[in-house]
């Protein structure tokens, strides 16, 4: 019986994800069509006006723009599935190759940011909750509000400008060092951007931790543990934090969207050649093939991360599994 329900759930979730990803592809495709002009005018710029109707028709045939929209959509989708994400004429590289370089960099940045976000957010939330309405609680709340209200681009710009211009420390000013080539310089370059993004996600993590701990603290098993003589530190780390993990993991997963969006801004400011910068460069250089494919890649990654968060959540919480 339970297995049938699980099967049903998985099926429903699977079809939902399929439709969402299909919708994402349609949306990205429509966006591509909505751009004033098309690949021809985007590629040639103002010279496109000098084309004779015959030349234009030939180019349109070459790019497949004379086909019906539906045909164009499915041939594009077919290309995407076979790994052909388009070609960047400026970088002389396929978008697939560019993504293979940039995606791991953004993943490294994301992992470091999440680690920093958890390192700041969870202890701060527990500290706040350990004595509600006290000075330390107020401090936690202020840091939380600051994290929510200070935009990543402001924090990043301020940090970079002050460090570089006042203290002449700018590891990001000398070209990007990949992790496998110069791990030490790479970590220095990643530290500030990861801190900026981590600070942004620390606020929601802190708030979630605080609420969860306050809630769990009052439950019977905590009182029992306390009566049994469990030391206070062990009580907090083992009994309370262990149970607060579910909302914290969920919140961390939810922050991935912020992280990927914030990565665009932060990578740009710190000159980190990640996937966010790839989108932005594509926009600035009017390379729409790069923009559309990269946006598609990011959206698919985002959907998959949400799926993983959901799975992790089921793994951690036996109650959800039993439902």
């Amino acid at each position: 019986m339970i297995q049938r329900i699980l099967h049903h759930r998985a099926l429903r979730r699977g079809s939902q994800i399929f439709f969402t990803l299909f919708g994402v592809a349609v949306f990205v495709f429509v966006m591509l069509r909505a751009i004033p002009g098309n690949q021809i005018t985007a590629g040639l710029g103002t010279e496109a006006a000098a084309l004779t109707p015959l030349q234009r028709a030939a180019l349109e045939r070459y790019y497949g723009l004379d086909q019906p929209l539906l045909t164009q959509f499915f041939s594009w989708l077919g290309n995407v599935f076979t790994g052909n994400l388009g070609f960047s004429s400026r970088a002389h590289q396929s978008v697939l190759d560019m993504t293979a370089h940039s995606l791991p960099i953004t993943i490294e940045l994301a992992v470091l940011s999440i680690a920093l976000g958890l390192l700041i957010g969870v202890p701060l939330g527990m500290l706040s909750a350990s004595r509600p309405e006290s000075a330390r609680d107020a401090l936690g709340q202020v840091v939380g509000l600051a994290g929510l209200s200070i935009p990543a681009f402001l924090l990043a710009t301020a940090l970079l400008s002050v460090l570089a211009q006042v203290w002449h420390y700018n590891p990001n000013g000398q070209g990007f060092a990949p992790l496998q080539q110069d791990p030490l310089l790479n970590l220095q370059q990643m530290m500030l951007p990861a801190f900026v993004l981590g600070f942004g996600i620390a606020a929601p993590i802190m708030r979630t931790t605080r609420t969860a701990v306050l809630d769990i603290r009052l439950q019977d098993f905590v009182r029992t543990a306390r009566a049994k003589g469990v030391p206070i530190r062990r009580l907090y780390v083992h009994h309370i934090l262990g149970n607060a993990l579910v909302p914290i993991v969920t919140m961390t997963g939810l922050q991935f969207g912020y992280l990927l969006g914030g990565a665009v801004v932060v990578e740009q400011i710190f000159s980190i050649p990640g996937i966010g910068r790839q989108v932005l460069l594509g926009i600035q250089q009017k390379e729409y093939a790069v923009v559309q494919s990269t946006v598609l890649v990011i959206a698919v990654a985002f959907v998959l991360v949400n799926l993983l968060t959901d799975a992790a959540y089921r793994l951690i919480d036996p109650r959800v599994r039993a439902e």
Partner: protein
Amino acid sequence: MTDLTGTPAIPPGTVAPAHVLTSLLRSRSGLTGAVISIILLLAGVLSLLHLLPYDAIAQAPASRLMGPSVAHWFGTDQFGRDVLSRVAAGVANSSLIAVVAVAFATLVGTAGGLVGGFFRGVPDAFIGGVTNVLFAFPPLLLALSLASVFQRNWFTVAVAIAIVYVPIFVRVTRGPVLSLCEVEFVRAATSTGRSRTMVMLRHVLPNLTSILIVQVTLSLSWAVLTEAALSFLGLGTPPPAPSLGSMIFEARTLVSVAPWTMVAPGVVVVLLVVGLNLLGDGLRDVLDPRNRGK
């Protein structure tokens, strides 16, 4: 409106405006938020009415990069423009875009959540599908892709931001609509033979007011942040119109020479967001009946 229902208030509900105002002013965060927001918006309005002593766009090379003084409270920038006037104009521009974006998102999103939650079935599935697709994009990425596609002017920036926030309003309203449909007064109204649309508009919609007020306030602060980020990246309000984001971008090379050019717009954008956030939190405390008496 509440006398129509005859039932005790349930979480989504309408509250007397006078009561909301007094409770809001009594809560510390609500009051702080309201004061900050009103002062900044007032500065923006003054700038829109050209009541500030300096023009935000006209350049004055003779007085470039001057520190804060009695004549220029926040100093001047690299073109000799008064930073205070530019910050005020930036607040006006950002707020205008944020208000238009949130208004659009509220209308479309609420309509979506209302129709989906009330009629269920095919419309609900369709609206839910579109919402899922829009949620599949990281918000800032979606906004900047859309902004890059449109011809750039302040209105298209607002539309780009609005599209990002539509799904949030759908999600926020759909759940309460579902639970409202099960409440006696809505069933009673349906049983009197009123048309379904009429019941939806007259009995369900008014009960979403408090949820919407909170969501609108919080969304305004996000919209201000998004607009600032877009302008920072050069995809927001086109120059020469001042914008808080582009001011911060221009100031990044001046930090050691003229730190005020970054501090002023930076502090103002943070204050604007803090003010709206606190106001939203305060309103939520006041409007959510579950919090009353705490």
